[in-house]
């Protein structure tokens, strides 16, 4: 199959239906990013749709200097950030999610043999990260879970390197406090 550059060139030259192929190629990556910020699968689907529509609208701005996947990932992160800001406003109305038994059990135990699966870990982090601002959450998620560099985080959220480093440090401290509170519950 053709690479992204050739596919995008075809789309720019008047084959908009080929954008479906772009969606099929990159949907798993976009889902993986969005799922870090939203647990509900239907909502993730909506956010993925929003990401691809925004990518389509901004396609003229993609200059091909960086891989298309990186450019699309940045759009997905911004969609997630906007979503978190909307959700933050609604947070008081809808309340917070509750932890499952596995997650609670892991939080209470302190021995080295206690195991934690991905789902329970994501539940814990999701709940604790409600204490963070949306931008803090994006920074700590990109750094600690996605393994992104400071430069990549800067590009995604539009902040300077110093701002990202300071935010990451504060976000870690806040998250540790929030996790500490969960252990005591």
């Amino acid at each position, binding site marked *: 199959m053709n690479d992204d550059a050739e596919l995008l060139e075809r789309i*720019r030259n*008047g084959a*908009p*239906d080929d*954008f*479906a*192929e772009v*969606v*099929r190629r990159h*949907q*798993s990556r976009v*889902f*993986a990013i*969005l*799922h870090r910020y939203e647990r509900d*699968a239907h909502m*993730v*689907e909506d956010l*993925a*749709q929003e990401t*691809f*529509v925004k990518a*389509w*609208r*901004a*396609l*003229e701005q993609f200059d091909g200097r960086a891989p298309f996947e990186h450019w699309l990932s940045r759009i997905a992160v911004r969609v997630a950030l906007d979503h978190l800001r909307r959700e933050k406003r609604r947070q008081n109305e809808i309340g917070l999610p509750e932890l499952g038994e596995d997650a609670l059990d892991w939080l209470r135990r*302190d021995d*080295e043999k206690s195991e*934690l*699966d*991905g*789902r*329970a*870990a*994501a539940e*814990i*982090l999701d709940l604790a990260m409600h204490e963070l601002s949306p931008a803090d959450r994006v920074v700590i998620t990109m750094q*600690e*879970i996605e*393994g992104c560099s400071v430069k990549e985080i800067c590009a995604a959220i539009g902040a300077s390197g110093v701002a990202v480093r300071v935010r990451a440090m504060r976000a870690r401290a806040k998250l*540790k406090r929030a*996790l*500490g509170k969960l*252990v005591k519950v």
Partner: protein
Amino acid sequence: MNERKWKQLFAAARNETPPAPSEELAATVLRAIRDGGQAGRPETISMVDQLNSLFPRLAWASAVIIALSVAADWGLTAAGVPGLGEGVSQISAQWFLTPNGF
């Protein structure tokens, strides 16, 4: 929470499998693009969007112009150069408001 648990927590979170996209996602995206009136080509940036993106620069430029004007007025007044308002008053007094005026 100690460092070991912190690392374990993030390592486990990294391994979580995201939900699979539905098979209709590509079709839904194309429909949304068409419904938005974008069937032909990606949209160009509108004038309003361009103004929005320029707004911070325009605001700064306006603030700088206002500050320069205030500084110039203050400087000229201090130097004894008659201001524009003073000139207008003088013209009014000499020409328009004299007994023999218009």
